[in-house]
């Protein structure tokens, strides 16, 4: 009986991630619009967009291969799995033993791999630009991400997300310079991975400035819907990761009962809302960087991660 409940809870988390992702995207867009003194699209607009896209006909280029048709599903699958592994309102769920930070990085990396291939597949030049830029960003962002995982894992004693969250919530953690540096580095990497300003503008129409959009230029219909949903879920994933790793208070542990889950859910919603607002403010306040400056930006994140690791060693040996 308990097992069924556990599976239900896990299923609930998977569904939550799927359903809430477009809401987060819509929310960020709304806040940005308000900050720019516009009224902005409704909060539910992304849902309407997805619905519209799902009903439309798929138009394929003649040179598209099977990879082009399979990629959206693959990308969606990888991202959904990764997103459902990150604790949102509770840790210690049924599948959480697989929820390893490195596994999540690997899943997201696979998704990106297929996206880049799809961009190259049709043979247009803009797709090529997008894929090459994406590869450049990835080549720096992934090592930076791993270097962020190191100090966290060293401090908490494991790369399992539940363990890290439990440690960070406990009083043992305390003020730590390394974790602070890791936080800053994580935010920088998250911005790069999610293709937000200042790395990439998600609302741009100019192909020459695109990174993520350029790769999906040729997609239409349900394929495009899957990819858009995957991108929203990725944003939600990073927000949940930020909340669970660095601000894990209020997280319920599995089996604590419905009340605890409710508290967990409420705190989760609050945290994601705050993160969404902060993201919108940040995007409005800053201009997009030129593409050749992105390696410097990510290099700084890499370096912060390295410094965080060094400082952990320093504190250990004192």
């Amino acid at each position, binding site marked *: 009986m308990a097992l069924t409940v556990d599976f239900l809870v896990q299923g609930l988390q998977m569904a939550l991630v799927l359903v809430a992702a477009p809401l987060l995207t819509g929310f960020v867009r709304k806040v940005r619009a308000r900050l720019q003194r516009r009224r902005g699209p409704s909060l539910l607009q992304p849902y309407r967009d997805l619905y519209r896209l799902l009903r439309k006909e798929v138009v394929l280029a003649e040179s598209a291969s099977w990879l082009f048709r399979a990629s959206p599903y693959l990308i969606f699958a990888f991202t959904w799995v990764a997103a459902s592994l990150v604790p949102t309102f509770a840790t210690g769920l049924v599948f959480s033993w697989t929820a390893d930070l490195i596994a999540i990085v690997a899943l997201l990396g696979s998704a990106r791999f297929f996206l880049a291939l799809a961009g190259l597949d049709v043979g247009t030049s803009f797709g090529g630009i997008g894929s090459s830029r994406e590869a450049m960003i990835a080549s720096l962002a992934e090592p930076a991400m791993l270097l962020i995982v190191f100090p966290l894992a060293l401090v908490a004693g494991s790369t399992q997300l539940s363990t890290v969250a439990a440690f960070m919530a406990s009083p043992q953690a*305390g*003020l*730590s*310079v390394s974790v*602070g*540096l890791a936080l800053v580095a994580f935010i920088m990497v998250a911005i790069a991975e999610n293709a937000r300003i200042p790395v990439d503008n998600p609302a741009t129409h100019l192909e020459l400035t695109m990174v993520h959009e350029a790769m999906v230029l040729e997609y239409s219909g349900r394929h495009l819907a899957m990819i858009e949903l995957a991108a929203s879920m990725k944003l939600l994933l990073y927000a949940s990761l930020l909340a669970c790793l660095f601000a894990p208070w209020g997280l319920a542990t599995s089996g604590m009962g419905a009340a605890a889950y409710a508290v967990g859910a409420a705190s989760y919603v609050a945290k994601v809302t705050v993160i969404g607002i902060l993201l919108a403010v940040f995007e409005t306040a800053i201009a997009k960087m030129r593409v050749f400056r992105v*390696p*410097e930006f990510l*290099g*700084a994140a890499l*370096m912060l991660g*390295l*410094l965080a690791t*060094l*400082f952990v*060693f*320093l*504190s250990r*040996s*004192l």
Partner: protein
Amino acid sequence: MNSLVFEIAHMLAASLVLISFVQLYQDRLYALLNTFALHSLALACSVAWQAYIQDAPHLYVTAAIALVFKAIVIPVVLHRIIQRLKIHREIETVVGIGLTMLAGIALVALSMVVMLRVTGGADPLARQDLAFALAVILLGLLLMVSRRNAVGQVVGFMSLENGLVLAATGAKGMPLVVEISVAFSILIAFIVIGIFLFRIRERFDTVDMQVLDRYRGERL
């Protein structure tokens, strides 16, 4: 020792190292000066905190000197000098920024390994202070070596001095001689730098050290 107190000291010293890295990253002269002002501010806070922990009121004087002279007066004066002399405002580096940063990380790692291994017997606060101080010194040295502009070299030297002040405060009870000497070196360096920057600009119409290098007597 109270752990929170220790953590704050740790954070202030670590922020000093971090700001040194930010200095390494800068390629524009005004930004470099502002970062240096921030560096000295962090030093002043760190020294003041140490004065509180060690219950050593004379360190407050050092903190005040660092704040007034190095965080306010010297950046303002260098700002004016740059404006008056119309010094070209971008600083070229000898090697690319990425390589410089990697070298910086290597130096920080080296200084931590060396200082932690060597100061086995001392209390943790002094040990971490010395480790961070050596890191700041080496990063200041790297800044001096990797910049071709005379003002960049001067800023590198001053952040090196900041590291020395941190080391001196970490060594508990070091008498006033050191504080006087450190303040004295700030003053004299300032005067000499002022004279030289003006004279060099006057003679060479530039402060790019590579131009100066042409007048190096006899290549080896």
